[in-house]
Structures are given as C-alpha cells and as structure tokens.
C-alpha cells in the first residue's frame, strides 16, 4: 500500500491533476507511479468508483511488470487487486457528474469519442469540454469531431478554432484572433482566444492589452511557460526588463533583438580575431537569420568573411579555424567539401576557388534536383576543379585529391580516373573533358584542356586535333585554336587542311606572325608534294603563295625551294646554278640555311631534280663558306642555321671529306656562337661535333662566364661529354653538381638536360637517372623509360 501521508515536493496536487498524472504514467508504462497517484487521489477524496477503471488497468499492468521480473507471487497479488476494482470499464457509462474524471481514465485518443457518445443522452459538461478543447488544439485531431452530433455547440466552436489555427500557426496572431471573435465568452475555446489576443498585443508592443487578455486565463492553461513569460512582460515596467525579453526570445524562438545581438557578436569576434567565438557566432547568426536553411546562410557568411581576410581584418589561419568551428556539424556535403579542400589546397590564391566551388556545389544540389538539369552548373565546377588541380603544382597530392573530390561530388565515373595510373594530369584532363562536354561554350575549360593535352607525353595528335576542333567550333573569333590546328596538320603533312585552318585564323588575326609563318610552311609543304608528284606548275604556284607572306625567318626556306623548283623546270638550270642565281645577294646566313635546306631536300625527299656529284660537293662547299661568313659577320644568326644542320648532314656523316668539313665547321661555329644561343646548339654538338673540340669550348666558356646558371648548364654538358668520351664521371660528383643547383635555377638546367638525346641520356644511367629522379623530370622518365 502507498504512503498517503508522504509529503510531495512539486508534482500534481489537485485531484484532477492526480488522476491526469495517473493516466499519463499508465500510458507511459509506469504502472507503479500510476498506482501511487491513484492512491493519493483516493486519499484526497476522489470516490473509488471513479478510479476503479484506472486502478484495474494499473494493477494489471503492474502484474505484467512483476511477472516479467519473475516475481510470480507479487504478480498474482496485483491481479487479485485488479479484480477487486472490477473490469476495464468498457461497459460502464459515465454519468453527468463524473464525466470529467471518467475521461481522464480513458486513453487520450478515445476521449473525444467517449464524450461524443456521452452527449447523446447527457447535457454538456463545460469542464470536460475545456479539457477536450485543449486536447484538440494541442493534438490537432479535428477529424474526431465527426463523432459529435451536428447541432453541437462544442463542434461548432471547434470548427472556428480549426479555421483560426492556420494563421495562428503562421505567426499571424492578429488574423487568428479576429477569426476567433465568433466564439462566445463561455466557449470551451475561450482561453485559446485570450492567448491569441495576448500574443497579438505582445507582438505590437501593447502591454496593457496583453495584461487585459491574460486576466481570465486559468493557471492550468496548457501553455504555461509562454503564459508566464507574457504575464511577466505585461507587468508595469517589465518592457525594459532584460529578463523578460530574453525569456520571451528563448521561449518563442529568435527575435529581432537576437539577430542584431548575434551580428554584434560576429563583428566583435572578427575585430578581436577570436576564432572559437567566431565559429560559434557564425553558426548562431546563420540560424538567427535563416532558421529554414541555416547552412546556406552560413556558407554565405563564410564567403563574406573572406572579404575581411582580403581587407586584412582577419588572419587567413584564423579564418580557416573559424570555418572549421563554424561548420563542425558538417550537415551538408558542400561544407564537407570546403573543409576537406582546405586541408589539401591551403595555398595562396586557392581560397577563391574553394569557396566558389563550395557555393557552386551547393547551388547545384539546391537548384538542380534533377541530374539532367545540373549540367551547366556542374560543368563550371569541373572547370574550376581542373584549374585548381592543374595550378596546384603538387601532382601526387592532387591526384588523390581529384579522385576524392570526384567521390564527394558523387556523380563521377571513377573508371576513367582510375584508368590513368598515377597521372594527375590525366585526372585533370578527364575532368575538363566532362566539363567541355557539358558546357561547350566554356572557353577557359577548352584552353585548359588543350594545354594539358599538349603537355602530355607521348602526345596523341588525333585527340589533340579533336580537342582543338571542338575548341574552335565552341569559341568563334579566337585565332588560337585555328593556328594550333594548322601546326598539327602540318605536322602530319595535311597541308590543305592546314591551309584551311590558317585561312580561318587569318580571318581573325591577319597580322599574327605565327599565321604568316605557318602559311609559308603550308605552302612549302604543298610545293614539296607537288614537286614530288611532278606537278611543277602547282609547286610554283604554292611557292609564289609562300613568297606573298614571306618574312625574314622564312625567306631562306622559300628561296631554297624556289631554287629547287626552277631547276625542276624543263630546260631549267642545274640545281647549283639555280641555287646560286636565286640566292645571289642574300645574307650569308640565308645562303647557309638555304643550302642546308636544299641539301636536305635532295637527300631525303624524292624530287625530280637530279644533282651531279660535283655539284653536290660544290653545294656543300657553298654551305661551308656561308657558315664561315656567318661566323665572321653575323654570329647571332648561327643558331638559326646550325640547329637544323644535323638533319641535313646526318646521312653523309660517314664520308671522310664531309666529316673533315664538318669538323672544321663545328670548330668555327662553337667558337663564334654567342653564349645565349650556344644552349640551342649544344645538344646537336654533343651528337655530331668532335667531342674533344666541344669539351675544349665548354671549358673555355666556363672560365669566361660569371652567370651561375650558365655555368651549371655548361658543367652538365661537360659531364655528358666526359661520359661519352668514356671517362669516369663519378656519380657522387655529378650528384653534387646537380644538388648544388638552387631550385629557382633548376628550370633552365632541366631544359638543357631534356635536350640531351636518348642515346646520351641512356648512357648516363644510373648516374643521370638518379640525378634526374631527384628533380622529377617526368617527361624524361616517360621518354627515356629509365625507371
């Protein structure tokens, strides 16, 4: 048995409260607490027959609890007590006097139906209707009103309340209050009307009206906390009270004061650079601004916060720390993406990309629920991402980053990324391909794509041509892709296609030097083909086309081919005579270059131009004289002439006379060529010049130059020559040489090393391999297959 004389602190005190409490505890599965409340209610004077049903149910529930714990005897005792209080009372109808306590004994969802049944043969009970009205408004079970008879005041009033609930839920208390005007002063919903009027007055700041509205509100009105706050706010002088305001805002959600207060906190946190406070303030302010979508506002705040970083108000590290704290919930993929990128791409200039990417990503998620509609926005993200990947410079890191970022973005096909083993460039290419496929008008993405394809080794001309064609189609008005296409076409001897591309380019950039040079090249290529095919007239036409756009650099080439073509005419002069006539008056370097080209053409291309052996030798002599003249009078032109020289004379290098001639030539050229041009001819010199002569020249220049970078390049070539001469280079000495080069000077040295031919490089293995590996000369790796 219970202890009725035990003092209770707090909790239900009145009989109704005790009964209500017992019903609630029973419904929640706490049979023992329900029994305690029922006993206390009985002690306070509630007739036992009013509590029989609840006692019966509570004892039965208690019996089950005890049974589950294995206390069989105690469970049996509880069942006996249940039987003492009769059945569940399903067949007992309440009377007019006990309808209210009876309803408390019923399950909550059946109370309205029970009362509706009661009303058929009993008068209405105002107290019961107030209790049911509270139940209706709190639970919004308006459909249960169908059980009430049509001519029923309670039902009519409930209908009015239901119609007013829509504006009330929206926060439009004034409209809701007006909708409740038809309720009579005795209506069961009168307290809800009073509360609505009080809220409307509070919103408008009408304190007397609040106090007046709350006057008739009972102490057990369900919204106790809100009522308490309204009452406190309605007391005289309470409007200035901080406690009332903060209580109200705390209870009723965020208000205007809260927004301004939080904005002030953010400002202060930025001024004082308190990152922990800033992160928290960001979260709370975003929630205050936009309770529906705080994450979006938070992102915008983060982006706006970077303006403070740019203005120097906030340190960048503090900014990142604040972001990490501000988005610690990670409730959106976009935020995860942003924080993730921060850990990878924390370098100068990347923030714009990252926050732009984050916002773009979120925009995609929000604006394009349908995947097919995301194309354009996603294409922008892809282009940006590829730009970041390409510009970051840390290839190994960004490969995995690109892959992970793809995964986060969630709708990429990984196979194409995994296919490229450890090549970040390929990952960026793949991303860009998707970008241009989805947004063909994105010029930046096209440009980036072709740059990456150009830098890839081995280069695939077909895919490069395709990329440029798409670029040219997508971005009209840009001569760049047309020029590039022309170069590629020329490289594959498709000169007509090259000419067509150049015509397009000339339409956009008629004065571009590259266009005129390529037009010359295309015309010459066509001329060669026509000469080979015996179509002399066409060849001459092509040559005159070339002459029309000729510039000083291409002049020797055109002259050389003119000489060849004129010699091919019927009754034309001999090749030598044609050469001498055509190049009479030309500069020594032009004559040398032309002679080189003529020789090359004759040796390598099948042309209908016979050359007698003595003319062949004379031509070589003319070339030799021209080179020597160039060494004396215009050494700056030497590199332009000598660079292609090995191609011309490679086939005849074995001839003794020619070799002697060439040795003499190389000796003069190596001495005469200026330092700035020497690097252009050293690779060829390593291949074809006398190595002892070359070594001597390298040593001479080493003693002469003060330029550290140039010294290191000369040392590199010296080491190469020494190795080729069969002398021990010394891996450690060579490594020391390479290690001594500062990182900011490595580029020209690397460029020089890259120009060494495959046979030379291969003979350096393992020394050069080790040295090159230190600088990650990836192109050399692929080319030479050293590792």
């Amino acid at each position, binding site marked *: 048995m219970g202890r009725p004389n035990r003092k209770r602190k707090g909790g239900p005190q009145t009989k109704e409260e005790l009964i209500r409490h017992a019903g609630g505890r029973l419904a929640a599965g706490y049979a023992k607490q329900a029994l305690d409340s029922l006993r206390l209610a009985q002690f306070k004077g509630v007739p036992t027959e009013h509590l029989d049903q609840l006692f019966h149910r509570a004892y039965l529930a208690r019996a089950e609890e005890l049974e589950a714990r294995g206390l069989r005897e105690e469970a049996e005792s509880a069942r006996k007590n249940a039987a003492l209080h009769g059945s569940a009372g399903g067949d007992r109808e309440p009377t007019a006097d006990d309808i209210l306590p009876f309803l408390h004994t019923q399950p909550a969802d059946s109370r309205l139906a029970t009362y509706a049944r009661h009303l058929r043969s009993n008068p209405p009970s105002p107290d019961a209707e107030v209790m049911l009205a509270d139940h209706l408004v709190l639970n919004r079970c308006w459909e249960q009103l169908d059980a009430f008879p049509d001519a029923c005041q309670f039902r009519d009033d409930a209908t009015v309340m239901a119609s007013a609930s829509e504006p009330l*839920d929206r926060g439009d*208390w004034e409209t809701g209050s007006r909708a409740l005007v038809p309720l009579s002063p005795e209506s069961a919903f009168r307290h809800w009307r009073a509360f609505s009027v009080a809220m409307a007055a509070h919103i408008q700041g009408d304190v007397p009206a609040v106090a007046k509205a709350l006057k008739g509100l009972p102490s057990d009105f*369900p919204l106790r906390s809100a009522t308490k706050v309204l009452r406190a706010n309605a007391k005289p002088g309470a409007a200035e009270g901080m406690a009332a305001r903060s209580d109200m805002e705390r209870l009723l959600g965020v208000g205007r004061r809260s927004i301004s207060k939080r*904005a002030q906190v953010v400002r202060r946190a930025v001024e004082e650079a308190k990152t922990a406070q800033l992160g928290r303030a960001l979260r709370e302010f975003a929630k205050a601004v936009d309770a*529906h979508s705080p994450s979006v*506002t938070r*992102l*915008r705040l983060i982006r706006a916060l970077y303006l*403070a970083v740019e203005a120097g108000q906030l340190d960048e590290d503090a900014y990142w720390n604040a972001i990490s704290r501000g988005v610690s919930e990670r409730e959106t993929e976009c935020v995860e993406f942003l924080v993730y990128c921060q850990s990878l791409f924390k370098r100068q200039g990347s923030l714009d990309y990252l926050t732009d990417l984050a916002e773009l990503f979120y925009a995609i998620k929000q604006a394009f629920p349908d995947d097919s509609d995301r194309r354009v926005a996603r294409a922008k993200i892809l282009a940006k991402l590829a730009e970041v990947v390409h510009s970051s410079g840390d290839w190994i890191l960004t490969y995995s980053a690109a892959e992970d970022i793809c995964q986060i973005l969630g709708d990429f096909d990984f196979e194409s990324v995994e296919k490229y083993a450890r090549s970040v460039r390929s990952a960026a290419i793949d991303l860009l391909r998707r970008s241009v496929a989805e947004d063909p008008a994105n010029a930046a993405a096209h440009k980036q794509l072709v740059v990456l394809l150009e830098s890839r080794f081995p280069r695939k001309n077909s895919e490069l041509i395709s990329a440029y064609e798409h670029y040219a189609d997508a971005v009209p008005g840009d001569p760049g892709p047309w020029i590039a296409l022309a170069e590629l076409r020329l490289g594959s001897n498709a000169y007509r296609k090259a000419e067509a591309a150049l015509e397009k380019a000339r339409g956009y950039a008629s004065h571009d030097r590259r266009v005129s040079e390529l037009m010359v090249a295309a015309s010459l290529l066509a001329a060669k083909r026509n000469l080979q095919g015996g179509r002399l007239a066409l060849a001459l036409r092509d040559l005159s086309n070339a002459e029309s756009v000729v510039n000083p650099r291409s002049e020797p080439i055109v002259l050389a081919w003119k000489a060849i073509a004129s010699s091919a005419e019927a009754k034309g002069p001999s090749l030598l005579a044609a050469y001498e006539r055509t190049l009479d008056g030309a500069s020594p370097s032009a004559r040398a270059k032309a002679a080189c080209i003529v020789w090359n053409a004759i040796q390598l291309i099948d042309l209908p131009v016979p050359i007698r052996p003595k003319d062949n030798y004379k031509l070589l002599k003319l070339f030799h004289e021209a080179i020597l003249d160039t060494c004396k009078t215009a050494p700056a032109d030497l590199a332009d002439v000598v660079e292609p020289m090995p191609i011309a004379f490679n086939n005849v290098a074995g001839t003794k006379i020619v070799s002697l001639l060439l040795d003499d030539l190389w000796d003069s050229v190596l001495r005469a060529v200026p330092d700035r041009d020497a690097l252009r001819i050293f690779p060829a010199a390593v291949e074809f010049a006398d190595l002892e002569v070359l070594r001597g020249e390298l040593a001479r220049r080493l003693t002469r130059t003060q330029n550290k970078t140039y010294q290191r390049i000369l040392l590199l070539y010296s080491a190469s020559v020494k190795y080729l001469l069969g002398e021990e280079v010394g891996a450690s000495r060579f490594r020391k040489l390479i290690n001594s080069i500062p990182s900011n000077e490595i580029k020209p040295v690397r460029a020089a090393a890259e120009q060494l031919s495959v046979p030379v490089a291969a003979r350096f293995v393992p020394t050069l391999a080790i040295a090159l590996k230190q600088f990650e000369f990836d192109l050399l790796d692929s080319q030479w297959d050293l590792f």
Partner: protein
Amino acid sequence: MICPHVILGLRCDADDAEIRQRYLELVRAHPPSRDPDGFKLVAKAYGMLKDRAARVQSELSGPVQCDSFEDALAELERAANWAWTPPGLREICAAEDK
C-alpha cells in the same frame, strides 16, 4: 542582395509555385502605395528566385556582391530583421513540450 530567400522567408529548396505564392503574399502585405521600400525589396528578391534560370544566375554569378565584410553582415542583418515573423502557435506548443 545576399539572401533573397531570407527576404521572402522561404527555404532554399522552395519550388517555383511556393516562391510565387510567397511573393504574392508579401506584395499584398507591402503594397507600393503603403510600403514602397518593402515592395522594392520583395520585388528584387523575387526577381532573383522566380524561376530556375534566375536562381542559377543568382547562385552562380558570384557569392557575395558586397565590398566589405561589414557591408555583407549588415545586409544579412537587415534582411533577417525585415523578414522576421513571430513564432506560430504550433511552434509555441512544441517549445512548451520541451
């Protein structure tokens, strides 16, 4: 304008119909004859959200159109204060349950 959806009191994933409905409600509440500034604000916000193309444009054209962080913060504060609505009955009931 940083947050047009805040001005209109909408979720970010509101569809065209919801946006239009809310726009019409606000225009009725802030007619140009009575509240010209409020009307302009609502009209501008609606212009940025009225259809998918406009939403994309406003989202992708640039995240922040303010010159300084202080301007951006002040604009957000103004937008939130302007768009603030009192809590509703359901919200108060839910707060009471807690």
